[in-house]
């Protein structure tokens, strides 16, 4: 953890960004990509539909309850059908590629592109306004979380592994979220963390995870100490 923290930043915001003040802006949340399972002692990433369904519901409820974005309303959209569905799928894929680039070249300090060391200068392009037209929103929020908890077998292996000097990763807890300006396509904010906290299978954990995923989102109160206390 310490080396990771030293080499990596968790989020980045477009410099000088502020929501327009003359009106209440609308943020739309696209279907969060949530997957929860167990990392078994053998290293298999085992899917768990019940946990995933629970987590998806809890995360959505938590965003609904405590999104707390000052100066904005937050709403959810389902998966559109037909042409809109294809377009959203393409932009979701483009967002994935852009998020990868930001994680690799911005948040990971050692791999920064010399030409864009500062700021946060990535975009999905103006064509994204088609999503604004379809949803009536000003901003779009994409969320991705993937968890695999250590099973009891794995926890035993960790204890024995530690005794014998073998490193066993306790579980997978990765997540990223990004806010896109649906008029310009600009990435306003991106947050990524390969080792997230919060057991998303419980309301408290989902609260912590959403807090972490949305950490640094413009318009949110600074709340890192508060989440630590809550859990």
């Amino acid at each position: 953890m310490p080396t990771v923290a030293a080499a990596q930043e968790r989020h980045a915001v477009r410099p000088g960004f502020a929501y327009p003040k003359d009106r209440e802006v609308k943020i739309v949340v696209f279907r969060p990509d949530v997957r929860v399972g167990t990392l078994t002692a053998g290293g298999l990433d085992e899917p768990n539909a019940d946990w995933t369904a629970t987590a998806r519901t809890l995360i959505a409820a938590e965003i609904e309850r405590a999104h707390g974005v000052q100066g904005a309303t937050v709403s959810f959209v389902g998966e559109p059908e037909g042409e809109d569905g294809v377009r959203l799928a393409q932009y979701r894929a483009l967002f994935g590629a852009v998020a990868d680039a930001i994680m690799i070249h911005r948040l990971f300090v050692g791999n920064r592109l010399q030409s864009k060391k500062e700021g946060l200068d990535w975009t999905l392009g103006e064509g994204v306004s088609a999503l604004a037209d379809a949803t009536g929103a000003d901003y779009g929020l994409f969320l991705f979380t993937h968890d695999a908890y250590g099973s009891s077998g794995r926890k035993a292996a960790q204890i024995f592994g530690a005794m014998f000097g073998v490193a066993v990763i306790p579980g997978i807890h990765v997540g990223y979220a990004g806010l896109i300006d649906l008029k310009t396509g600009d990435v306003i904010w991106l947050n990524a963390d390969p080792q997230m906290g919060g057991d998303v299978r419980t309301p408290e954990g989902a609260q912590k995870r959403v807090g972490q995923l949305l950490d640094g989102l413009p318009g949110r109160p600074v709340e890192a100490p508060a989440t630590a206390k809550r859990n």
Partner: protein
Amino acid sequence: MLAVSSLLAGSMVPQSSAAPGQEASPPVTQAAYVPKDKDERGLWMMADEEERQLRTSNFVIRDPAINAYVRDVLCRTIGQAECAPIRLYVVRTPYFNATSAPNGMIQVWSGLFLRVRNEAQLAAVLAHEYVHYRDRHFLLLWRELRARAGSATFLSMFGLIGSLVAMGQLSTVFSFSRDQESAADSGAVYMLANAGYDTRESALVWGQIRDEADATAAARQAKSRKDKNGGIFATHPPTADRMTALFALSEKVKANGEPVNGVDRYHAMLATLWPSLIDDQIKLNDLGATEFLLASLAGGTWTADLLYARGETYRARGAAGDFEKAAGFYREAMAQAPANPEVRRGLGLSLLRLDSADEGREQLKEYLRLKPDAVDAPMIRMLAGG
């Protein structure tokens, strides 16, 4: 790809997938089946996610006639009620395989249509995948894998001896998987017989696949990989064993009345798809396999399309003597189809490489005359001398 079990894994497919297990044959549920416990719901969820992506994927071949035909063969083989919950996807991937997922999604790879030779063989593959789904092979394999893999890591922490024990633990998982494949193979034979198909075709598929591996190897001057299936870690039985077992079973289990293989119907339905699939195959840089497949599609009657494909195959490789051969095949194709522009293009480009520049340029001019709006017209015009 863990959520999917496949028809074969191993040397002939660059990506291998995990596979399924047997026992427990639940009665076919007429109502839609719902997953019963935590494990099964987890596997379904992953398969559902994959299927969600397939719905917008441009890799899915959506031609209604092809889809209707493949579905018809499936339903005719496994029964109308049984096939109702199955979703079939034809995926543009130029290798021989089909996969089934725990949620009832079956994917058929486009390369399969170049490799099965009649409807009975297609039915055998589809029925094989259906048995994996019906008998919930993946769920059983998953449990086996989880149980064994757990102790494998545990033991592997204890040095060489521990690692060897760990490998032994895992190899039982793979043998479990191989048993499931055999179960799916034999389950499919009974369905073929019920549907009136010639059950021997289920074994003949494997003979063809082995011969193709030999052809690939011969052209590359390498050792055939037909028996390479990963040894004790293979998820699927050796193709030779599968073929032998299927021949033996097909002697015992036969259709009532005169068995059919549906070769004419198969050819009529898929002939329109073949040119694009052959193009995908040619670009795999595997001359031996391509020649083998073209010969089997020809069945002794070389059409202009197949001769053209043969010319393209040799021209693409471009080894010593290949341009002469290619030019020969293009000329034969041209005799049958003088108005086919692509044949002229292939012949012209071959002749330029053979230093028969004048005739080559004439052929390229003919290509441009026949296909003035070709994507490469400006380039070819220059090569043709303006």
